[in-house]
């Protein structure tokens, strides 16, 4: 499965939760598949989806799912020790690991070579780290949500993209709509 198929698969599971979605194609795909006020789309700032999600989870009780990529986690590896040492049991970091920088033309990442992001997360001190194959993500994600324990999920999948338009919603509108959904 490629990322857009995975997002289509888990859309019914994540739609009632707060979602912070990674820059580029992941946000465009989620926006096209199931746009929700509870989705925060990153239009820039590669690497910070996990940090934004953790900050949000730490200050309010609703479940927060950060949808990140292998390339984006690699660009902000310092996020994993911060997540491990500031436990928010309403936080799930979902790393969709296709072993490539999808939005920029599928250049390979080191996560698709020798580096295991699940092992890195464990070494950083994250207590609940799950590595799953694409087709098994739905149940694993639902289990993580229900467990109310901070969980890092590394979902291994194929690289590949579908053609989608960019998100033209104004960033302040995205942010305002999201904040109202958080406060609701």
């Amino acid at each position, binding site marked *: 499965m490629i990322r857009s198929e995975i997002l289509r698969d888990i859309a019914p599971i994540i739609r009632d939760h707060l979602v*912070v979605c990674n820059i580029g194609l992941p946000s465009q795909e989620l926006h096209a598949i199931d746009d929700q006020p509870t989705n*925060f789309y*990153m*239009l*820039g*700032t590669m*690497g*910070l*989806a*996990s*940090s*934004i*999600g*953790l*900050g*949000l*989870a*730490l*200050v*309010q009780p609703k479940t927060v799912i950060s949808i990140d990529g292998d390339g984006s986690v690699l660009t*902000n590896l*310092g*996020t994993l*020790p*911060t997540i491990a040492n*500031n436990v928010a049991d309403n936080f799930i970091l979902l790393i969709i690991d296709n072993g490539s920088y999808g939005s920029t033309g599928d250049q390979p990442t080191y996560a698709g070579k020798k580096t295991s992001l699940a092992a890195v997360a464990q070494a950083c001190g994250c207590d609940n780290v799950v590595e799953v194959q694409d087709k098994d993500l739905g149940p694993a994600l639902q289990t993580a949500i229900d467990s109310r324990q901070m969980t890092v999920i590394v979902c291994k999948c194929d690289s590949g993209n579908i053609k989608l338009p960019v998100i033209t919603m104004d*960033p*302040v509108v*995205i*942010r305002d709509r*999201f*904040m109202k959904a*958080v*406060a609701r």
Partner: protein
Amino acid sequence: MSISKKLVDDLVANDVSFITTVPCKQLAGVIDEVEARSEIFHIPANKEDEGMGLCAGAYMGGKRSAIIMQNTAIGVTINTLATLIQFYRMPLPMLISYRGELREPVACQVEMALHTKALLAQMHIPTYHFHGESDAAEFDAILKYTFMCNKPVAILTDASFWGGYGDQ
């Protein structure tokens, strides 16, 4: 009253309850004070752009946040300031140690000091420079201004403000 206590009192009085820090020798006292306050959730960050992401998340969760960092971090965070904090219009007080100014013992710090105000001006970031201890009197007003206009705002605090480097 110590200057660190005064600054953190002002943060608390302005409902700032989530603070991320990347340490600097000059900021050690104020970071200790942040850590000691029960009203504040203190979360050390490994890098300043990561810290700004944490602050953005906390802000969207309904809490006022702030970052405490060194001026070298301006070089690290330009993209995050432009594409996250400014693009989505979020308030972010940035309490910054302004290394490389008068009484600085480390030559390399001067290199980023030379660029600090120019970069902040280029980014259209309101910038205040605390040089003498009495300058801290404006901190409360600067915080109110930050949350009024929803922008990142820089407060540069130099070595003279913090009382120099002691044995220099």
